[in-house]
Each structure stands twice: as structure tokens, then as C-alpha cells.
């Protein structure tokens, strides 16, 4: 039998595998954000990341932006949910130090799906009339070639992240990763050139061998590394595993109103 490599690594090794300047795809704050890995990335001094969110972010993007590690972001939205605005994101945009490519959720999904399907673009309904189109020259409006009637439609180009990074419930040592109904993570893994995952637990066996688990599993084909990091989304919640640390999130929301407050809190979190 051809050898099946063991894809488990430590958290620092995983963080070391994400170069500066990567086009880095991350999930929404509610969909498995790899916060521990993001802090590890900051510890090793990553710079000039180009973030693309699937399809939004919150604490994770704000942290990386506040730390000065992000040159550019493509996103449908960044906010802290119940804890309000993402101040470092907002400040960096207003200051012009963060390049923003505003998007809308389904366009990001379409971009990742186009990459996953190996096609150069996907068409998308809606959006016509939005100012997004004026600022996204890469989104192309064509007349629907399949009808004689007037029917302009938006084409969204494929998004090929250099790296996708997220947190999931389970992985086996072969790199199969169980994400359940969070299938946007599967699409991300298919779209990205390389995919790195932190997980709550290692499954002792082959996730693809169990039909019940296989249905929610990203095949190892798309996964380069997995690191065991229980609580890897803290202080954010991870459904069924980690409750939100509301005190820490509230403290972040307050401290990050200023760059100094943010820097002090970040130093604490990185220690």
C-alpha cells in the first residue's frame, strides 16, 4: 500500500508554514476561526498578509490588522458581533493603511466555489445597482449569453488563496477533517493551494471509513497539516466545545478602541 503520511504537526510548525504576504483565507468568527494559530503567527512576526474572509470576520481580522500584520483585506464585513464594531479594522481603513476590497457574502462564496470547481468565474444574481460594482473592476457584468432579453449578470472571478487556515472539531492523522455542516470550510480547502487546520481533538481512525462521519469530512486530499489545539478559537466560542469568553471579548472591545489599548492587550495575549 502506498504510504499515508501523518499530517499532524505542532502549532508553531503550522504557523511557520504561512509565509508573509500570503493570500490567507479565514472563516467567519462563528465558523471556526483559528485564533490560537493567529496569535502564533503574530508571535513569529508575520507581515503583509492579504486576508480574504469566508465571508466575514471579526476578532480574528481585527487582531491581525491591529498587530500590523495585514496589508489588504477582501471581506463582506468585519465586526465583533454582540461586542460591537471592530475598531482596529475601522481605524486602519480610515487611516488608509489597510487596503480594502469590499465584497458581499455570496460573491466571496462564489469566488471560492469557482476556484474549487476549477473554473475562472461563477455568475451571480443580485448586486446590480450596488456601488460595490463601481469599486470592483474585477467583477464583470455581462449580458446573459443564454437569452435574448435584457439580463445583465455579474461574473465573480475565482479566488485562489495561498493558504486557508481554520479551526475544526476533529481530524485524523491522515489529514481528514470533520467540519459537519460548515461546508464553506470544505470549499475553502478545495479553493486554497494549501490548507492548515487546528482541531479540538484527533480522531483515532479514518474519518472517511465511517459513513456517518465521512458526510461531514474534508478529505485529506486538500489538507496539508493539522495541529491539535483544544480551545483553538478562544476567546471566541466553538460550538459544542468552547463557550465564548464574554469578559475577554468585552475587554478586547474596550481596549481596542485605541491602538495603545490594543497593543497592551495584545502583548498580554501573546505572552
Amino acid at each position, binding site marked *: 500500500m502506498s504510504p499515508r503520511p501523518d499530517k499532524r504537526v505542532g502549532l508553531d510548525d503550522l504557523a511557520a508554514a504561512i509565509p508573509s504576504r500570503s493570500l490567507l483565507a479565514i472563516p467567519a468568527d462563528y465558523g471556526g476561526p483559528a485564533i490560537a494559530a493567529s496569535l502564533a503567527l503574530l508571535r513569529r512576526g508575520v507581515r503583509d498578509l492579504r486576508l480574504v474572509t*469566508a*465571508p466575514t470576520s471579526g476578532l480574528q481580522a481585527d487582531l491581525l490588522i491591529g498587530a500590523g500584520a495585514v496589508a489588504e483585506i477582501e471581506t463582506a*464585513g468585519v465586526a465583533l458581533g454582540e461586542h460591537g464594531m*471592530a475598531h482596529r479594522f475601522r481605524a486602519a481603513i480610515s487611516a488608509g493603511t489597510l487596503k480594502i476590497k469590499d465584497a*458581499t457574502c*455570496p460573491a466571496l462564496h462564489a469566488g471560492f466555489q469557482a476556484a474549487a470547481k476549477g473554473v475562472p468565474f461563477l455568475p451571480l444574481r443580485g448586486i446590480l445597482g450596488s456601488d460595490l460594482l463601481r469599486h470592483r473592476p474585477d467583477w464583470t457584468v455581462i449580458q446573459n449569453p443564454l437569452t435574448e432579453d435584457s439580463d445583465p449578470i455579474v461574473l465573480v472571478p475565482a479566488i485562489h488563496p495561498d493558504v486557508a487556515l481554520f479551526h475544526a472539531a476533529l481530524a485524523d492523522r491522515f489529514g481528514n477533517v470533520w467540519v459537519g455542516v460548515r*461546508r464553506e470550510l470544505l470549499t475553502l480547502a478545495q479553493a486554497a493551494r494549501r490548507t492548515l487546520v487546528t482541531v479540538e481533538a484527533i480522531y483515532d481512525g479514518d474519518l472517511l471509513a465511517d459513513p456517518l462521519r465521512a458526510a461531514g469530512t474534508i478529505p485529506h486530499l486538500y489538507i496539508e497539516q493539522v495541529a491539535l489545539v483544544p480551545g483553538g478559537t478562544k476567546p471566541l466560542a466553538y460550538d459544542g466545545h468552547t463557550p465564548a469568553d464574554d469578559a475577554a471579548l468585552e475587554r478586547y472591545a474596550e481596549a481596542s478602541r485605541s491602538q495603545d489599548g490594543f497593543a497592551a492587550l495584545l502583548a498580554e495575549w501573546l505572552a
Partner: protein
Amino acid sequence: MTGRFSSAEFLAATLARLLAGSRTVAVGTSSPIPAAAAVLANLAARQPMTVSLLGSSRTNPFTSGGVELFDFAAQGRLDSFILGGGQIDGAGNVNLVGIGGYPTSRVRFPGCYGSAYLASLVPNLVLFREEHSPRVLVPQVDFISAAGRGPTGTYRPGGPSHLLTGRALFRFDHDRGGFTLLSVHPGETIDSIRAETGFAFDTDPSVGETPPPDAAALVLLRGPVAAGLTELYPNFVQRFLKTV
């Protein structure tokens, strides 16, 4: 609007009435009052209704990831969506991006989320913003995240149906491309609404007072709705619903 019920309860109950008759309702993230309204509408519905709260694991019928809600809407299967806005103008345009220049907005909002897409596709798009002031309800938004009306000759089965604020309820007229005042909340008048609204609007001949939540709605809001929202909005539930 104090005393027997909170402002959040009043608004959630009013929004819930605007969702009656929907088979499917979805609510975005960071939207506690709309989420409460959707769960309430579902509990009160006599026809089958399905509610999706974005970001929720429990109140979410979708199994194909984040894209499914949007695909579902484009298929015409999503009847109602509740959309907030940093600015809303008299043409039904919504701004979720920022004020003062682009991209380096003076005041930056979170971003468009699904609005640019859903606003064209969902037949019953309810706009909701608690703050009702000339700062929010402007003559013209600085950035059109979601357009009230699309360019002519485009596929556009959806669009705004109503606008609910902390002061009043408006209907959106697609043909005219503008709002009509339907009712004012307790303590407001047509004149007080006009003074606090930055855009021109029509007034419905039968304009009256927005009715308060009935007792049944309050019981549901404080019991099962509160319980259902605790996953996503624990702080909101604690602060704004008079949970029993």
C-alpha cells in the same frame, strides 16, 4: 414604550407581524431584535415557517455551509429577510460601508454582508434600524451597499417592503421608489417623524399608532424566544428581554 414591555420587545413584535405569512425567514449576524422577531413570528405562525439565524447552529435548517442561504434566496425560496443599515435613504438604498469618501471613509461601517445580493432577490426585505434620526435616515446614502431599486432591465424579484425604526413604520413603494409612513410609535406624531427623518416620504391616509405587542407575543418573547436566542445573543437576552 416603557413599563409593560421594553423597546426591544415592542420592535421585535412589530417586525414579527411583518413576517407573518412567510414560509421562510432569514436574519443576518449581529441582529438580536430581528432574530427575536423571526423566532417570535415562527412561534406565532399558523402555517409552516422555517427560520434561519445566520451564525447559529441550532436555529438553522441549512447543511451546505454559508452559501446555502444565498443560493436558496436566488432560487426564490427565501420569502423574508431583515436588513439593518448604517444609513438608509428615501430611495430605499442602504449603506453598510461608511460615511465620507471611499475607501478611506471617515466613519467606517462593518461592510455589505449579504445585503447587495439579498436586497434584489428577497421579495419581503424588511429594513430595520432602531435609531431614527437625520444622521441615519438621509437624503442620499454615501455608499449604496444594497440598492432600493435596480437599474431597469435587470432581474430583480426582490426589494425593500418596509422600514421599521424606533419611531415609526414605513412601507416602500417600488413603483415610486420611496417610502410611505404607515404608523408612528407611541409618543410620536407625523410631525415629530418628519423632523427626525432626513428624506421626504408620503403619508398613508390611514396613518395611526403602531399597536403594542399583545400579551401572547410578550409571553413568547420572554419564554421560548429568549431561550432560543441565548446561543447567539446571551447579553441581549439578559438586558433587553424581560425573561421569566
